[in-house]
């Protein structure tokens, strides 16, 4: 579903944010993307979603090259950015309709999905008011709803659990599992190792833009016997 081949991104010809990074994400997988601050996670996600252009390498989503067939590739992506403060003057329902129009979601389908996500996230009270009055968590929930409104094959989330209350975080994790179980894939960045441990089929760890590990957490723990996940992460990203 996601193909990232030898991708490099250099800013201002001086800072190498992502350095020859390659990985794959397959159908049905939940993949955690882990790395310390400034390791290149957000830059990677921005290239994957078409926001930034890679200087080298190829990126494909559902076999559509994000550079050569950007619109086709983007149609298959549902993306939640790290900052949910977007179009706050729109009402929740207006924002969802706008996104549905962009992804050409039929009206009967969108109505069912709006109602379902409202019930699940407890948004029923607020959907018809401007998002300006929403809390950070509520805005994040609307972004989740918007990202899923077209049932994307590839769901990409940048630090999705920040600001969510325990119930909503639990719901979001369940939704990620369900989405992957329905034959799609989920790729998300996180700092919370426990979340990755409980949720992910696979983790990709990067440090200073380079891949340091890609595989299952079980395998990672086997490679570093006797150490906690936290210790392994610190060791891998210490250099």
């Amino acid at each position, binding site marked *: 579903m996601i193909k990232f081949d030898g991708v490099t991104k250099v800013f201002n010809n001086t800072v190498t944010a992502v350095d020859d990074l390659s990985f794959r994400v397959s159908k049905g997988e939940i993949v955690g993307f882990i790395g310390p601050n400034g390791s290149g996670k957000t830059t990677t996600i921005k290239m994957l979603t078409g926001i930034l252009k890679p200087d080298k390498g190829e990126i494909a989503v559902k076999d559509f090259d994000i550079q050569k067939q950007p619109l086709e590739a983007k149609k298959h992506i549902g993306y939640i950015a790290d900052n949910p403060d977007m179009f706050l003057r729109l009402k929740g*329902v207006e924002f969802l309709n*706008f996104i*549905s*129009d962009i992804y050409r979601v039929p009206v009967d389908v969108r109505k069912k999905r709006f109602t379902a996500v409202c019930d699940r996230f407890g948004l029923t*009270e607020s959907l018809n008011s401007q998002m300006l009055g929403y809390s950070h968590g509520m805005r994040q929930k609307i972004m989740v709803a918007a990202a899923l409104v077209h049932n994307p094959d590839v769901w990409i989330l940048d630090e999705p659990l920040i600001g969510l209350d325990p119930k909503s975080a639990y719901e979001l994790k369940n939704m990620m599992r369900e989405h992957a179980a329905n034959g799609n894939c989920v790729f998300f960045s996180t700092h919370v190792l426990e979340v990755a441990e409980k949720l992910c089929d696979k983790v990709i760890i990067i440090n200073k833009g380079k891949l340091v590990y890609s595989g299952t957490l079980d395998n990672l723990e086997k490679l570093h016997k006797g150490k906690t996940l936290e210790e392994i992460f610190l060791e891998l990203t210490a250099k």
Partner: protein
Amino acid sequence: MTNYITLLKIFLKTTEITPSEKKRSKLFYSLMGTAILMLIMLPAGALVGFVTYALSLAVLDAGGSTQAANIVLHIIAILSVIFGFNVIVNIFYFSNDIENLLPLPLKPHEIVGAKYTYSLLSENIMEFILTIGVCAGYMFASGFSVTGVIGSIIGILTVPILPLAYCGIISVVLMFLTHSIKNRDFLNKVTGAGTALLIIGALVALVGVNDFNAEAFAVSVTEGDSTFLNVMNIIFPQIPLLMSGINGSIVDLLIYLGVNVLALAVFLFIASKMYIKGVSDVNTAKTKKDVSDTQRAINRSKENGVLKSYIKKEFLILFRTPAFFMDCIAVNLLWPVFFAVIIILQGQTNFMSGVIESYMNGNVEMILFVTLGVIGISVVISAINSIASAGISREGRHFEFMMYIPVELKTQLHAKAIVSFVVSGSGMIIYIIAFNWYCLLTYGWVDDPIITFLMPFLHMLIALVSVIFASYFGLFMDTINPKLVWDDEINALRGNYNVFINTAVVLAAVGGVCVISLVLDRLINSGTALAVAILLITVLALMGMQVCLKKGEKNLMSIE
């Protein structure tokens, strides 16, 4: 005091060009700065100076002194309050830095004082220029003196203090008194509606004035019969004091300075007592929740095309964001006031009646001048409202949204340009209808269908073509170097050099069209000049579209 200065320095830094925005060279900014000064600021200052000079001559002849200059400065002060209020409310209460400032060990008057000074310095360049015009206009009429020059310099630097202090006091008191209203959008709507009403009120008042006569005006203000001047002298007492100081009274100049200091002291005292309460409530305020309507709203959902949906989104944000509404939408309401002032000041026996008579008689040269006027006004209106020239900058931090949605950038650019086209174009159509109606009222019906039907229709088309040029070209200018980092929405527009640069560039382009047409008018004939003017603006519009959609798209894709 140290905290105040530190805060002020930080606030002023936000208006500087960030390293990522330094794509253009220093030479480019220098050239554009000069162009802005030459094409926008100096003409505006010169116009105000000329009006002051002409009115002052009449008043001095009638035995008066500074009354005409007082009136012009009062009008500038009123405009300063109208536009400053929105800026002050946004910067004091709705900017993103509030949540970071409140937990710091800062006194309320330090925060408010620094924000006030920042607003004063960053928002009033135009007011400084206009005040220079007034002082120069008055001194040209009355004669230059050393005290006059010193007083003028003091006045130019300090005249905006009191109007902005009023804005500060009103906003602090309003936010304090309305702290129980847990709906900040209500406050935003009240602010926007109040300002729109003020502008419309000014227009209605001006329309009620018939047959302005300079001599009658001079006698009226000299004898103290002008209600406007008398009321304004009470509201802005510093203005007659300043002008009296410029006229030679050092005592009045000192009292003038004292009034400003007093106004600042009162404002800071009120702010120290009321600011924290008001701002805390803003930060806890929530918009109204509407449980019962949610399901109905979902059921009302309907499918729209991408372009239509994108345009709708742009309109909703423009109309619902107070800063955008004021600077992009409400500003268009000022033009009728401006035109009404020109028409009223000219009266039926002066310049305008001559223009109208010649136009209604089918004089081709006058038709050319009016057409050039239509082109110029259309472009200026589209550029000044900044809908297009800040179209990308307004996206701010969520500019990335434009990049990751599966919608071509060309479509998104079209949507933004169409919004500018609709607002500016509909305004122009209304103004052209109003102009033709005014011509019919003042001159009477003419049986020439070219004048009564064809020319208004043609002028509407030309206006729309001109608006297309300004909209697409303005949007293109903003794609080169959009201001995407801003703390509050007002900063996306007022602190955005692209708006000024675009205005200067499109004015230069239209100036070129006018010069070529006027040369042809002299060398060949008015008909040929008219045809060439229409052809040139059409070519500019097509080029503007092409440049915006092709190069603009490339510019957006290169933003990192």
